[in-house]
């Protein structure tokens, strides 16, 4: 068997094997930590095979490292794996974050370590599976699998007594829409006789899934709702604050964002192109509002984790905004921003976890003046903050800039200029709450929340943080390396607007707004001509 065709299987099941091994090993000393670290490092090493052997310049919609084997004959379910540029980088990101999550949990998780690391590795399996699966049913198995370890991690290793409620909330929020997703999938199968994503996508492109547009519309909503809750998209973020506040650092790092956004891009957009365009103006609005809403509420928080929860909401909103613009810049930037959010958000959560480990509180009112005694801590915290607020030269700026410039061109939404203005104002509020946090924790007169001697970062913490900081800088300066393989996704998705969107209501809408667009288009083409 060729490594290229089996690599995705190896990547997905390496953590599973690791979890089984850990479950069999005795929980003594640091066995669990070392075991999990080795497994996650091996997995990460395997994921690096993908970018090393990825063929760039392939036509959009083609997958690489494909495995396609029959699994169940009837209904026709296949073991179909494969990645394109977008899912490849998400796989690498998942692999990259896992060992760092283990390092961040090294001392924090001191009891029931076996349970923790086994669940943690199962969570890995589920996420890696989600990014690689190209068969809807296989995908759904991983999707549901991802729910269980996360819920148990929150319920078992939560910080306060509220952990059970938080876990229940998370589970209900995710599970109920997932049930609708299942119904939608079964309906799709009943219509087409296949769960295979590439087949469904090509059927969708030729409007061959169903002639019943109302049923398609409902089905697309079932898909979108399940994904949007998981992101979460404003205002479906009811579970986010409690889950983030309770979940241990390693779980928080992978809690929100990636899987939901990826699923929208991969499944909603591919199977329901017309329906996705139809709902795009609403999603653009929700995204733009979410940016400002998240940032403003973050500004009023005293608890760092709550602040980070709303900050997460704001940053995920900008990605939602970007991908629903159906412009190249918006989609490319949105996908890039998923990666960036994984890095910068992850680093922020690790840093907060380190503070909590030392001082036993997330309440900023207990902090102050730590900069004087923890110089490395403040350095890395400030760099991470600058990444989060989108300082040019660091990673997030590239993504946010592309998203917002894409929004300005998103003629799919009637008031796209307004939404651009609203979303862009997030740069002010985003900087405000992050700098307020820096000031409250690190500046001003010195404090010592629980009387312990000041202890700057140790070697393990340096090891967990510096790779992330390095990636922030490299992704901020050399973005074409990543965007080059993401760009075909952006091109394919944005071209849906012109080619497959021949639904009559779209033309009607276009015509309705002709004056506004016509002006823009003519002036743009005039200047183009001039060039």
């Amino acid at each position, binding site marked *: 068997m060729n490594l290229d065709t089996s690599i995705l299987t190896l990547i997905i099941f390496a953590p599973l094997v690791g979890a089984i091994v850990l479950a069999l090993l005795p929980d003594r000393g640091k066995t669990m930590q070392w075991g999990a670290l080795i497994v996650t490092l091996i997995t990460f090493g395997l994921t690096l095979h993908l970018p090393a052997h990825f063929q760039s310049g392939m036509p959009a919609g083609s997958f690489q490292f494909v495995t396609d084997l029959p699994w169940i004959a009837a209904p026709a379910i296949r073991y179909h794996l494969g990645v394109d540029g977008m899912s490849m980088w998400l796989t690498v990101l998942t692999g990259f974050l896992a060992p760092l999550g283990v390092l961040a949990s090294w001392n924090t998780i001191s009891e029931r370590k076996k349970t923790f690391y086994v669940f943690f590795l199962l969570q890995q399996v589920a996420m890696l599976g989600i990014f690689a699966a190209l068969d809807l049913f296989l995908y759904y198995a991983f999707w549901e699998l991802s729910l269980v370890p996360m819920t148990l991690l929150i319920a078992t290793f939560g910080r306060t007594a509220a952990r059970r409620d938080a876990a229940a*909330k998370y589970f*209900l*929020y995710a599970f*109920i829409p997932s049930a609708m997703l299942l*119904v939608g999938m*079964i*309906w799709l199968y*009943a219509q087409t006789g296949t769960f295979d994503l590439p087949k469904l996508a090509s059927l969708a492109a030729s409007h061959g899934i169903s002639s*019943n547009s*109302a*049923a398609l519309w*409902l089905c697309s909503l079932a898909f979108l709702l399940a994904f949007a809750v998981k992101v979460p998209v404003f*205002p479906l973020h*009811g*579970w986010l604050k409690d889950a983030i506040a309770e979940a241990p650092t390693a779980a928080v790092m992978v809690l929100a964002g990636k899987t939901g956004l990826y699923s929208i891009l991969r499944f909603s957009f591919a199977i329901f192109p017309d329906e996705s365009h139809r709902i795009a103006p609403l999603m653009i609005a929700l995204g733009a509002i979410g940016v400002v*809403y998240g940032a*403003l*509420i973050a*500004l*009023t928080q005293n608890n760092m984790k709550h602040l980070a929860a709303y900050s997460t909401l704001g940053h995920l909103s900008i990605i939602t905004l970007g991908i629903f613009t159906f412009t*190249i*810049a918006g989609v490319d930037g949105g996908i890039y921003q998923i990666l960036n959010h994984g890095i910068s958000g992850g680093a922020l959560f690790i840093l907060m976890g380190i503070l909590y480990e030392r001082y036993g509180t997330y309440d900023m009112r207990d902090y102050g*003046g730590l900069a*004087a005694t923890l*110089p490395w801590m403040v350095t890395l915290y400030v760099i991470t903050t*600058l990444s989060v607020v989108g*300082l*040019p030269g660091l990673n997030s700026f*590239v993504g946010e*800039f*592309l998203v*917002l*410039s894409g929004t*300005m*061109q998103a003629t799919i939404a009637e008031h796209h200029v307004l939404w*651009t*203005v609203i979303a*862009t104002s997030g*740069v*002010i509020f985003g*900087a*405000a709450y992050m*700098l*307020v946090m820096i*000031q409250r924790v*690190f*500046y*001003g*007169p010195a404090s010592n929340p629980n009387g312990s001697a000041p202890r700057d970062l140790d070697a393990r913490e340096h090891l967990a943080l510096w790779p992330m900081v390095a990636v922030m800088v490299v992704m901020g*300066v050399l*973005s*074409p390396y990543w*965007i*080059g393989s993401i*760009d075909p996704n952006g*091109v394919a998705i944005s071209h849906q607007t012109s080619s497959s969107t021949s639904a009559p209501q779209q033309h009607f809408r276009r015509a309705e707004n002709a004056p506004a667009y016509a002006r823009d288009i003519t*002036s*743009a083409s005039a*200047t183009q001509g001039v*060039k």
Partner: protein
Amino acid sequence: MNPQLLWLIPLLPFTGFLINGTVGRKLPRAAVSGIALLCTAIPAIIVATLWASILGGGSGILAVASAPWIQVTGFSVNFAFAVDHLTAIMLAVVTGVGFLIHLYSVGYMAHEDGYWRFFAYLNLFMFFMSVLVLSDSFLLLFVGWEGVGLASYLLIGFYFTKTAAANAGKKAFIVNRVGDFGFLLAMFLLIQHFGSLNFSTVFSSISASSTQGGFLTAIALLLVVGAAGKSAQIPLYVWLPDAMEGPTPVSALIHAATMVTAGIYMVCRCHTLFDRSPYALGVVAIIGALTAIFAASIGMVQNDIKRVLAYSTVSQLGYMFLACGVGAYTAAIFHVMTHAFFKALLFLAAGSVIHALSGEQDMRVMGGLRKKIPVTFWTMLMGVIAIAGIPPWAGFFSKDEILYRVFVSDNPIGKLLWLVGLVTAGMTSFYMFRLLFKTFFGEQRFAEHAGAGHGHHDDAHAGHGHGVHESPWIMLFPLVVLALLSIVGGWIGVPKALGGSNEIEHFLDPVFGGGVELAKSAAGASEIGLAVVSVVVALLGLAVAYFLYVVKPGTAGAFAQKAKPLYELVLNKFYIDEIYNAIFVTGLLGLTTALFRSVIDFGLVDGSGWAASNGAKGLASVTRKMQSGNIRSYAGWLALGAAAVIAIMIFGLHNIS
């Protein structure tokens, strides 16, 4: 000159930042400052060779580019630098004045903790500032733009244990972000309309088209928002006075000579765009004139020596904005240059005074320092005369050029703007001589051994109280150099009417081209007349200050008592900070807490989640009855459920449509 050398201009300071920022803490002070000085001296030398080649007849047009920084289908931006005559002037100011201030800092910061941190940040600033002026595109300019803001944030908050300093740094960054908001939107519109952010692509497209106003006005106005943030114009000037919390060399370098002129540089760089929008230019002119007179009025009554200089900076930046607003870009850049000389000098001299008094900044407890610190006095005097606009010092030529251009401009209220500028000139002369007289003349109002803890120190530069003393040579040398430049720096722009040849105008002709043809040819006589008027006004300001603070000290206090409400209003800076605070901080936070947090997030988002989960619980209590524990009955339910779902999906939904 080899264009590849351009990369070194920003990269060397960045190297210095990396070295001092990582291992600087463990290095001896001499090594820290040595690295920082070397990493700013070499770029200054490179710029000097650039100038040598320009003065030797070279074109001075250079460009280098690297691989793309951001690239998606249909849009890309490179790391690319370009040098023209405008950039050459800015580079000379940035690297030259920057090096002098690094030198000064070696002495000024000698007794401070965090020496390594200071020089690391200062080098970081030099990195971003050179990127800003070298950049070939809006986006790379924005990198420098945000980066200097970051350096400014870090340096204002250098004494981070002081709440005031931490607040000031945060305020500077956030207010600047308001400006960046405008800048970003302008760039999005540029991408939309031109598909590019390269200066050459955008400006040649504009030149080649005949578009007037319209979306160009929108872009220009959004850029003005950005410029108003960085260059501290109404309504975004509020961060600059507070920025004086930073160490004094920082105030000189960042908050007077270089960073704050970035907005003016940007407007001048985009003159092709602004020339197409008389409306936007008018807005620039009015903002500039208002800021000039408004800040000058506040500067007249401040007692903190650095605050006077800060408001003076805001006011002078207003002049430069005004110049841009009437299309006199050369005059604006000329004033950027002379202002960099004399305002850096004034700040550094003020720093020397503060140094001498071991941290004291309140002019009410200064006085009579002329004999104690003579070098500081004489150099500062040069700066004061220069800014007051008395010939032949540098400030006279640049300011007078601006006033003259405003007077002859096409702006319908040009004469009014000129009058505002003229009055401001008188006020400037007054408050600067007031500062000089209060500090150096009259009786000593300070304790001879002023030590730490004396009075209030806006600058934490205290703690080595060993009597009033002149500063060491490493601080005085930059003062002397800048004093000389403050005298002769204007001579490259002596107008024809005064017998000069206005070299700077010819020098910048390739950049600003036809924009400067505005000058009415027959205006020679009126130009001389206007110059006489402004000199008279400047001397009047000097005379009033001399009368109030030297001849009859105490008269000013009596005036203030008579017009107490007005005096209080101006002294408290028209309560602008308080008003902003009430609206944008208290108001916004209150609204967020009351509406977003309580009603929407807790009420709607959480509430609906709660309702859903309770609904689910209710449903669960019903369905629990179905959980008999009998496997066969589960299988039955499952089959029934699946059948129902499929039935509904296949048959039910067909009926909907």
